[in-house]
């Protein structure tokens, strides 16, 4: 009898420090990976600030999607509660990926190979306001069931997390096979990495620890950045986990010009240089995912 197909990888993009490039990686690296490797990919915006959704969806499209109840909130709970401080008590099975995700791109020769997003929702904030952790357990189970079912349909799931040790972070860690940790070459984001490592190591619920992969976001420019990078790469615990190739640092990928969409779709001259760097990171990451 043939061995069953291994389940698809689930990447949680996470660092305890903000501003290190989590959303950049979730949007632009995953988009490039989708185009290059032709893997059916679902992006999940699990951050209540929903910056990933704002990066790839226009405001009107996001609002239509939210009105239709097609955000991450629909996965966590069957319907929106009357107040952001209450949660639902009646739990049905989670919806299917195909029912609620928003398709962004697909290959015309094979439309099933598509890149889609499950947009984020400010309503997720309530989970950090509820003190009764036991009441959150059905929500976590529902989220994990959704991920388990989606892993049989997709080649890759990428969860963009918020930078905190919250209920949502625990959900992402329980669901993922890999934690992709963006690090800026500065001491504070490396300290954020140490905190995350400690959090993962000591989280009692997490019996099977996800594989950690660290990616440096931005090139070494100043002496201080070079020194910090060498400290990280030489570190006995983290050094071997750092991808050899950097994420490119470019204003093209920054959310500061009102552009909605993927950076490498922009019609500008230096886009090919960014693609080349993204290709290197993609090819290295591919090996870690067992592809």
């Amino acid at each position, binding site marked *: 009898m043939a061995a069953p197909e291994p389940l698809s990888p689930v990447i949680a993009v996470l660092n305890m420090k903000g501003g290190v490039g989590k959303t950049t990686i979730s949007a632009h690296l995953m988009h490039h990976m989708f185009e290059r490797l032709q893997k059916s990919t679902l992006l999940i915006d699990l951050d209540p600030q929903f910056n990933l959704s704002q990066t790839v969806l226009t405001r009107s499209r996001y609002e239509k999607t939210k009105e239709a109840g097609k955000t991450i909130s629909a996965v966590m709970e069957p319907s929106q509660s009357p107040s952001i401080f209450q949660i639902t008590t009646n739990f049905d099975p989670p919806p299917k990926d195909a029912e609620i995700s928003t398709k*962004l791109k697909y*290959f015309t020769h094979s439309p099933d190979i598509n890149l889609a997003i499950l947009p984020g929702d400010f309503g997720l904030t309530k989970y950090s306001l509820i003190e009764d952790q036991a009441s959150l357990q059905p929500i976590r189970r529902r989220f994990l069931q959704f991920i388990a079912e989606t892993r049989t349909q997709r080649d890759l799931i990428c969860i963009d997390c918020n930078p905190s040790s919250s209920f949502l972070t625990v959900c992402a860690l329980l669901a993922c096979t890999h934690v992709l940790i963006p690090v800026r070459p500065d001491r504070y984001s490396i300290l954020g990495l140490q905190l995350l490592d400690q959090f993962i190591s000591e989280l009692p619920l997490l019996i099977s620890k996800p594989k950690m992969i660290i990616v440096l976001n931005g090139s070494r420019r100043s002496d201080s950045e070079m020194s*910090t990078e060498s*400290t*990280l790469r030489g570190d006995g615990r983290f050094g071997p986990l750092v991808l*050899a190739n950097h994420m490119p640092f470019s204003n093209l990928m920054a959310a500061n010009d009102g552009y909605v969409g993927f950076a490498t779709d922009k019609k500008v001259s230096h886009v090919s240089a960014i693609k080349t760097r993204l290709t290197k990171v993609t090819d290295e990451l591919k090996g870690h995912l067992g592809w």
Partner: protein
Amino acid sequence: MVKHKPVDRLLLLLAGSGMTETELREVLSHIKDTPIRSIVERVLRLDPNAVEMASVVEDEVFPYRPVKTSAEPDSTDVLNAIERLLVEEAGLTKSAAAFALHKWLQVRHPKRVVPAYQSKDGFAKWIRQLAGTFSLSELLHAASSIRNRRAHGQGDDWLDNN
């Protein structure tokens, strides 16, 4: 294997295209009325291996072709970084750098065979050989670790963990 002349190959392609006689006549008539240069440009722009994609924006679909990137990963800049760390930043000669790196890898990875350094073949070639046994991340880790130990006093008591 029979080799066809270019015109024969084109005729074979037309034969395999599934066109009716009427369609074939229309195509040939169109070609006859179009400048050769224009046809050549259009043919050269076509890439039979290019992938067609569609982007969905505001529920409208826009077809496009992504710009191709190299099929082969290029590790030259990482291998150059390893040499820079050991030779320029750690201040080692190439022989000393090779000795230190070889020893470091042997101690940390006793089950793997570390290729021997042959100075006549050059340092860069040896690093490439190492990349066949060790991942680029592992090699950068090793080179950075050696570099950091050479560069005393550059540590950070919040970050150092060796």
